[in-house]
């Protein structure tokens, strides 16, 4: 009996006081029905007095009716909740069980072990701190053992109990036990566990479950329950930097403005400086407000309300963070994904992702590879099917605040929702952010952009020529490059059409491909800028958002938008490539200016027209503007 009945009977107040100091442990059990998983959990519930007499009566009658223990009590029957499952003799979902001892309350996620239920195991593992991995001592390490270990490790569980069950059926043979443990430890080297505790058990007979077994005199470690009571799960959430995802803005009246949420990591005190991740605005914590009075300090796991010293704009979805240790903030990141739905993952398809209180439209821009959950091998693939795991790049329509999941398990995790069916179709954990210079530790080079440009006597920049087809972009760009070359400047031209023959030849004209097209051209131009080169890009780029995307890649002042403002009528009349004619005839769809819009730049740095001026004149105007912007003069960088 794990609850001390004597204390309950003699000193209930003392008992209650002691109970208030209990901690909580969530663990997951992994194994199949054959491994005796339900029996193991059933016995833990039984021995901690969580089975009542009426349930026992029902259990006895069920054991006779559908039991698998020849009329003896079948602990497994305690657990299988849903009727259909009970008849089939399998557990097909995640069920949560509860028991407690004097030291701890336990929440057990009981999930099925078959490969087709990987999603259920991942769900159960998501909230667990410890995984109990069951092994049938007769069979040793099986494919499913590797799978269960991989999934729990994928979800960030650090502590594993290797429960070598059915020791009674191998005569409590120490050498077989040692062999299994050695093999497992070897395999587990590639996983990210920080502790592995192997225990020889018989759940059915009760060996080493609660009391040390006389059948295993060679084993001196803890019993299963003793280990679960004592295992130290890292309290490291508290030691990580402060993060508070804002769930709710609390405004009962004009005098109070509080930001409510659960602290996901770290600690906070009044007076501490915080930053709003998205806006970068900072303030200091004024009060930590709770129903039970203001707190002097709050730690990870507490649901609190903060008030701040300054009136700054904060809403649901913002993440308040320690000012000196901001989380990553990026719209593109690499993540590991577990697919949970019958409809396959489709790269490029718009999904919703929910990360804490942040919601964004997002697409999986590239599936890098799949991971075989049984062998851990990397496999190439274009989609993920139900229960498959893959590594992918994700591109969201706005930046999200997160820490890599492996660094902070309480951050960088998200679910993927189908926008049309609203189903939860997948779950993901961020490996790292992509692209944003603020997040990626750049390899620091002694010879930097400024140094390279200085050597060439120029300032590197992108000249982004935009305008309708036939406006004269390429013609003017060509003339500008000639003039710059003559001035001794180092230049390069990226032409929209030419790029499609090589770098971007795998891309079509869908919206997703267009965005990718621009992104690649922008990234390429950025590399040239880093090389110190004046880079000319000639690209219709009809959408403002596309040009904004390219502009956002480089530093302020480096992106010079050159709008070749030649009217449609003039372009159509010229029709150098015969494209307007085809578009009018309906032979080309989505042709800019005809049946697809051209969004005129509103704040282009340079505007010229080849209707009123010759191409030569336009080029001269551009070069003189560049001189004015300091691109051509020697620029003295801070080296």
């Amino acid at each position: 009996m794990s609850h001390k009945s004597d204390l309950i009977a003699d000193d209930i107040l003392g008992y209650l006081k002691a109970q208030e100091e209990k901690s909580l442990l969530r663990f997951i059990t992994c194994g199949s029905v054959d491994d005796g998983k339900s029996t193991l959990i059933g016995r833990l519930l039984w021995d901690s007095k969580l089975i009542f007499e009426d349930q026992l009566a029902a259990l006895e009658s069920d054991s006779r009716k559908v039991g698998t223990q020849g009329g003896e009590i079948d602990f497994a029957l305690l657990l299988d909740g849903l009727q259909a499952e009970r008849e089939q003799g399998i557990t097909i979902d995640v069920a949560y069980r509860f028991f407690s001892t004097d030291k701890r309350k336990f929440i057990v996620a009981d999930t099925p072990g078959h490969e087709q239920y990987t999603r259920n195991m991942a769900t159960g593992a998501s909230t667990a701190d410890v995984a109990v991995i069951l092994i049938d001592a007769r069979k040793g390490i099986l494919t499913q053992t590797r799978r269960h270990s991989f999934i729990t490790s994928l979800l960030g569980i650090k502590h594993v109990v290797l429960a070598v069950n059915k020791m009674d059926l191998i005569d409590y043979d120490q050498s077989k036990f040692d062999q299994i443990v050695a093999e497992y430890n070897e395999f587990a080297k590639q996983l990210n566990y920080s502790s592995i505790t192997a225990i020889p058990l018989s759940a059915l007979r009760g060996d080493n479950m609660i009391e040390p077994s006389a059948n295993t005199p060679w084993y001196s470690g803890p019993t299963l329950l003793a280990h679960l009571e004592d295992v130290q799960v890292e309290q490291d959430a508290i030691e990580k930097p402060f993060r508070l995802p804002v769930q709710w803005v609390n405004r009962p009246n004009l005098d109070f403005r509080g930001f409510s949420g659960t602290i996901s990591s770290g600690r906070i005190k009044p007076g501490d400086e915080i930053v709003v991740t998205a806006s970068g605005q900072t303030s200091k914590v004024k009060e930590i407000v709770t129903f039970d009075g203001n707190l002097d300090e709050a730690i990870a796991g507490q649901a609190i309300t903060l008030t701040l010293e300054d009136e700054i704009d904060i809403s649901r979805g913002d993440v308040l963070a320690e000012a000196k240790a901001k989380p990553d903030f990026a719209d593109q990141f690499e993540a590991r994904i577990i697919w949970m739905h019958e409809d396959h993952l489709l790269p490029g398809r718009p999904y919703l992702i929910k990360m804490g209180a942040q919601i964004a439209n997002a697409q999986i821009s590239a599936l890098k590879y799949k991971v075989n959950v049984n062998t851990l091998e990397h496999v190439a693939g274009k989609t993920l099917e139900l229960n498959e795991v893959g590594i992918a790049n994700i591109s969201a329509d706005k930046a999200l605040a997160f820490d890599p999941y492996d660094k902070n398990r309480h951050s960088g995790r998200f679910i993927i929702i189908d926008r049309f069916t609203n189903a939860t179709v997948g779950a993901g954990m961020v490996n790292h952010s992509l692209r944003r210079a603020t997040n990626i530790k750049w390899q620091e080079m002694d010879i930097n952009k400024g140094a390279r440009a200085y050597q060439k006597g120029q300032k590197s920049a992108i000249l982004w020529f935009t305008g309708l087809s036939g406006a004269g972009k390429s013609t003017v760009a060509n003339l500008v490059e000639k003039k710059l070359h003559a001035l001794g400047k180092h230049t390069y031209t990226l032409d929209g059409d030419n790029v499609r023959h090589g770098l971007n030849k795998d891309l079509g004209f869908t919206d997703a491909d267009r965005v990718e097209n621009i992104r690649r051209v922008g990234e390429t131009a950025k590399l040239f800028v880093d090389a110190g080169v004046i880079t000319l890009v000639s690209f219709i780029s009809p959408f403002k958002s596309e040009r904004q995307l390219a502009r956002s890649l480089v530093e302020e002042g480096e992106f010079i938008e050159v709008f070749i403002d030649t009217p449609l009528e003039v372009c159509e009349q010229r029709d150098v490539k015969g494209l307007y004619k085809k578009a009018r005839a309906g032979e080309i769809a989505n042709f800019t200016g005809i049946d697809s819009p051209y969004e005129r730049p509103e704040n282009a740095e340079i505007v010229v027209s080849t209707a009123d001026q010759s191409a030569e004149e336009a080029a001269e105007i551009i070069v003189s503007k560049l001189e004015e912007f300091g691109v051509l003069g020697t620029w003295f960088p801070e080296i």
Partner: protein
Amino acid sequence: MQPNLTHLRQLEAESIHIIREVAASFERPVMLYSIGKDSSVLLHLARKAFYPAPPPFPLMHVDTTWKFREMIEFRDRMAAEYGFDLIVHINQDGVEQGIGPFTHGSSLHTDVMKTESLKQALNKYKFDAAFGGARRDEEKARAKERVFSFRTETHRWDPKNQRPELWDIYNARINKGESIRAFPISNWTELDIWQYIYLEQIPIVPLYYSAKRPVVERDGMLIMVDDDRMPLNPGETPEMKSVRFRTLGCYPLTGAVESEAATLPDIIQEMLLTRSSERQGRMIDHDQAGSMEKKKQEGYF
């Protein structure tokens, strides 16, 4: 070793997180208030979640008209004291047809006055999220139910087709007409509830405490004669016994237990020393194997 947050504080924080998430994600949430101890805890948590503001949703009691009189008194007293917005819904069709547990049996009564009535109320007020006080340890069918439990337009629950629920991230997306039931105290056990009530000094209906009450024994259950609608069988005379209730519902369907437990510690002590589970006092579970699961599929909470 002193834990950073005790198990009750962790459970409390988890519940508050869920309550805030529902309030932020749905247009018209409502908290179902059954007046029982779990409801008392739920209400307490809702007050904590939004302090110093009041909870941004109303409470609704689906009244079968057969609740204990003390429950109704308690309900109205709490509403007045805490100043929350209380909706009381009664299935008037059922009242007109004279549906009651004595005349129609427990199953039909529960179906019309509780299950149907709840659907009626949800449709009438167009609530898209309803908080309930169900716990996973109560009954096997509940052990698998999600915290955000999706309901179709006809309020059905499909146990085979539930959304995976990972970490503390809840999928709140629904289409028009659909709804969710939210269960913030899913991970609490009966013992946790009592310990928390004790720790936080949460008011509960006096029926939980032992007192001399008039009861008759019927089908092995002690039924309290709460008003004169209860027909007495020949030879039945109400006896004054020291009894209390471990669970509260319609008085004709709720069995009392003989007890001297008059304080919270007494109650907790009794609970830990006796070995029968709390739902035993409810007739509704005894009908047939898997009965709760069937009821849930049909929209019983």
